[in-house]
């Protein structure tokens, strides 16, 4: 079953998007691309008012509108696409726990200690594997990618946050890997081109 999704993000001008909104939007885009579903990104100034829950991003598929990563994952699953089907019960619980960790600690990305500790936990869990649950990416990978990539590529007042993440080389290469595999082959919505609009630096290297 093919689903052509339109993802709506809140964006008034190129550099006017909230950090957390951008991270969430990137996570959703990564997830949809990992599921091999075509997605187009639309920027609207009133996206958060259009959203049924008031939060961005949301996707518009056919007649339906679903917002936020959690419900979107459920919705895609109901349509027959899932990345975490192969996981056992214990692993699923673990995945949920890590997603909560990322949501609580990286969403605000203001307290550097929190970011540092979160990155340490993630780095330890990732180890030398390509993705968190070995060979195949799951929604956790999409979420982590969204947040870390946003921190790394958005110019903030100081580079301290970015530096903290860069301390963990396996997280860096993890982000690069996802960027290469899922974003670089599409010219229009490529992460590299969109981030070069968002920040002055282009990719991670």
């Amino acid at each position: 079953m093919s689903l052509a999704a339109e993802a709506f993000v809140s964006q008034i001008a190129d550099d006017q998007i909230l950090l957390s909104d951008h991270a969430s939007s990137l996570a959703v885009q990564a997830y949809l691309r990992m599921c091999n579903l075509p997605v187009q990104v639309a920027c609207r100034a009133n996206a958060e008012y259009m959203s049924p829950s008031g939060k961005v991003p949301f996707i518009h598929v056919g007649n339906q509108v679903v917002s936020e990563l959690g419900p979107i994952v459920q919705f895609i699953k109901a349509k027959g696409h899932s990345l975490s089907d192969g996981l056992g019960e214990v692993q699923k619980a673990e995945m949920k726990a890590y997603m909560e960790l990322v949501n609580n600690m990286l969403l605000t990305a203001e307290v550097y200690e929190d970011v540092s500790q979160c990155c340490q936990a993630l780095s330890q869990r990732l180890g030398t594997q390509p993705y968190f649950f070995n060979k195949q990416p799951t929604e956790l990978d999409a979420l982590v990618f969204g947040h870390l990539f946003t921190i790394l590529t958005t110019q903030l007042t100081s580079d301290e946050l970015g530096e903290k993440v860069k301390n963990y080389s396996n997280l860096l290469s993890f982000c690069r890997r996802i960027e290469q595999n899922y974003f670089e082959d599409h010219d229009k919505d490529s992460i590299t081109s969109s981030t070069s609009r968002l920040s002055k630096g282009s990719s991670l290297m």
Partner: protein
Amino acid sequence: MGTVHARSLDPLPMSGPDFGVHGDDAELVEVEPETKQEVLENKDVVVQRVHIDGLGRTKDDLLGYEIAEVFTATNLIDVMKKSHEAREKLLRLGIFRQVEVVIDTSDGEDALSNGVDVTFEVAELRRLTGSYNTMVGNNEGSMVLGLKLPNMLGRAEKLTFQFSYGTKETSYGLSFFKPQPGHFDRNLSINMYKVSGQFPWSSLRETDRGVSTEINFPIWKTNHTLKWEGVWRELGCLARTASFAVREESGHSLKSSISHAMVIDTRNSAILPRRGALLKINQELAGYTGGDASFLKEDFEIQLNKRLFWDSVLSTSLWGGLLVPIGDQPSCIADRFYLGGPTSVRGFSMYSIGPQSEGLYPMFNILLGDYLGGEAYWAGGMHLYTPLPFRPGRGGFGDLFRTHFFLNAGNLCNLNYGEGPRAHLQKLAECIRWSYGAGIVLRLGNIARLELNYCIPMGVQSGDRICDGVQFGAGIRFL
């Protein structure tokens, strides 16, 4: 009407039914029997003094204009007539509870033999009046509190505040009105308001917070209004099932517009007129004074009334409007026109004609989409009003009712502004919706009316929602 007292040296009673003079009320003064009788109508008089008694906070200079005409009267009937007109003008200011006129012969040293003094005895309105109502509407109840400060600063200024607290929405408004002294028809109004509404036919909720200033002035026989309005509009979906087209319009926007309206109204009444005509032309230009909305909007209303045989009235009306967006942005759902309903083309559901979004299950035609309004419309109506059959309650309650037979038609669509006017007219002429029927109309005061009609809709296009059979309507402006 008020009573005019006139004291005279003659025992002849006054007459003049137009001015509400009762022969019995004329006081007779004892006179010497040798005073000869005069026919007062032809008696030349000079109005020497005009007094106004009972002023409190009203400033003196305001009233000079209203009573100036009285001085020009040359005979007694003229004095009475001009005093009556002056009384009407004083009441029109909206600052007096009542006005009584007393005409008396002049007293004092400089009194002429044919001099009269005219005195207006007035009672000012209280400084603050309040009202409290409860209203019940479409699945909604509300309390309405009104406060009015008439004649606030002594020159007929008026401040009004209204607050409506409902089960669904809350609205309030503050309004300041100031007429030009001596020219009441030229006035200025400043308003601030917050109004919320729910529009189930579009699955839309709208909240407007706005400020407006307007000036009214007459030019010859027409009345003009110039207005600037700034509104902060907030649109939202009324239900989770709102269509995406409506969802896309959600959010906040600003509209800043200037508008001009011209009205010529020769009807004897706004509700159920018997004769006369109405022409109203309104244009609004948004975007040149700021804000997000940018458009030019024109609309007009024409109504003609003619009395026919046997106390019946033939009334025809025509409405039309055009919305032209300026610039790249498409028009906003809150600015477009809507058609259909008991006050518009009868026989169709409220605002349920014309362009709409896709329904939830288009292949089954279940759950019709949301009505999005249109950028151009026209609507026409023809009515024959007659008194109730057999005229029950004649002279009293029965006079508030009328039966009417009607024919309504109209169309609402979006125009492709690239094409020429011929294509536009063609588009407005195809797929015309129309209806006919009969019903009973009840007049409510001078402002509103209720209708209960039996309607037969025709020319129904797919997507229109109809209300054939009995339809009830209440409102102030009917097609």
